[in-house]
């Protein structure tokens, strides 16, 4: 009896390094496929910051944070110098056509004219266009690149941030799922 239990102990101790090794392999393997540049936003769960920025089309007019309240919506940070923004633009047009409200935040663009020209030629998916020339509003949102897309609920609280382009795969994934949950759209309806 005593021999059996001590034998078992020996096996357990012998297997311990193997177990530790497998754990380490799993951990490192995950690290290989995770993207260290994808940071979760520090603002998730917090209300949108206060701001006041000009309208991209008419700089005499100003928008403030109240434009982001009242309905679940996306806040898309973009610029004409950003190639990935161009890649996602067509998909944003599609989402807008489906009725998804998107507010555009033009982030430190080369010029106002370039930004307006972009929207005129590629289409304007945005319900409002904010012109953040010096990046001060983006800084309030913790933006560190473009494109970034924030999901904001009807009360104006930031629910999620997606870094990188929005496409069909992303919209099927967490960003889209969270939006549909907020907007009260069942997943089946979108299939």
């Amino acid at each position, binding site marked *: 009896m005593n021999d059996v239990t001590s034998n078992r102990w020996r096996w357990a101790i012998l297997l311990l390094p193997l177990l530790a090794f497998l754990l380490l392999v799993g951990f490192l393997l995950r690290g290989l496929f995770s993207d*260290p*540049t994808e*940071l*979760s*936003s*520090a*603002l998730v769960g917090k209300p949108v910051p206060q701001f006041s920025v000009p309208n991209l089309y008419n700089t005499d007019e100003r928008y403030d944070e109240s434009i982001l309240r009242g309905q679940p919506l996306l806040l898309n940070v973009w610029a004409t110098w950003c190639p990935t923004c161009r890649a996602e633009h067509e998909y944003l047009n599609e989402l807008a056509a489906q009725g998804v409200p998107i507010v555009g935040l033009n982030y*430190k663009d080369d010029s106002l004219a370039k930004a307006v020209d972009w929207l005129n030629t590629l289409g304007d998916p945005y319900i409002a266009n904010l012109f953040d020339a010096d*990046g001060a509003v983006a*800084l*309030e*949102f*913790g933006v*560190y*690149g473009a494109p970034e897309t924030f999901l904001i609920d009807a009360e104006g609280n930031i629910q999620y941030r997606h870094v990188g382009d929005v496409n069909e795969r992303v919209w099927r994934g967490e960003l889209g799922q969270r939006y549909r949950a907020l907007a009260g759209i069942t997943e089946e309806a979108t299939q």
Partner: protein
Amino acid sequence: MKQIIRATFFVAAMLVAPSLWLASMPAVQAQNLQEYQFEDPAQEALFRELIGELRCPKCQNQSIADSNAELAVDLRDRTYMMVRDGATKQQVIDFMVARYGDFVHYQPPMNIATSILWWGPIAVLVIGAFVIVFRVKQQRQTEVSLSDEEQAQLATLRAEKKDTDA
């Protein structure tokens, strides 16, 4: 002896190399920072300390002092404005962490997510010490005692050895 000298030299070189590298850093920073002028030297010192401690979220593994990415410039400008307007070190750090997360500060706070960074090395040392103590004790306990028969065998072997030596 030669080996010991060589090993000592190697260790010394490894210790000195990083400090040489660090010593070369201020020169890199200086060319970035000429545009930031302060009237109060204490504020300038605080500014330099902060931009060395704040991490650029875009170009990871660089402080906002070292990086020339646009975002780093923006954050540097903001730090400059805040320090010049009399903000304390903690106020600037809190401002950045509220927007960019703990990631933006090179000295992470202690919480559940970062506890492994703080306690991991100590845990490894403690576990190692336990294993060594355990193994040494085990070895002492298993010192063999010989049976009478084996004692006799040993005695004859010793006697034989003495004979052959003589």
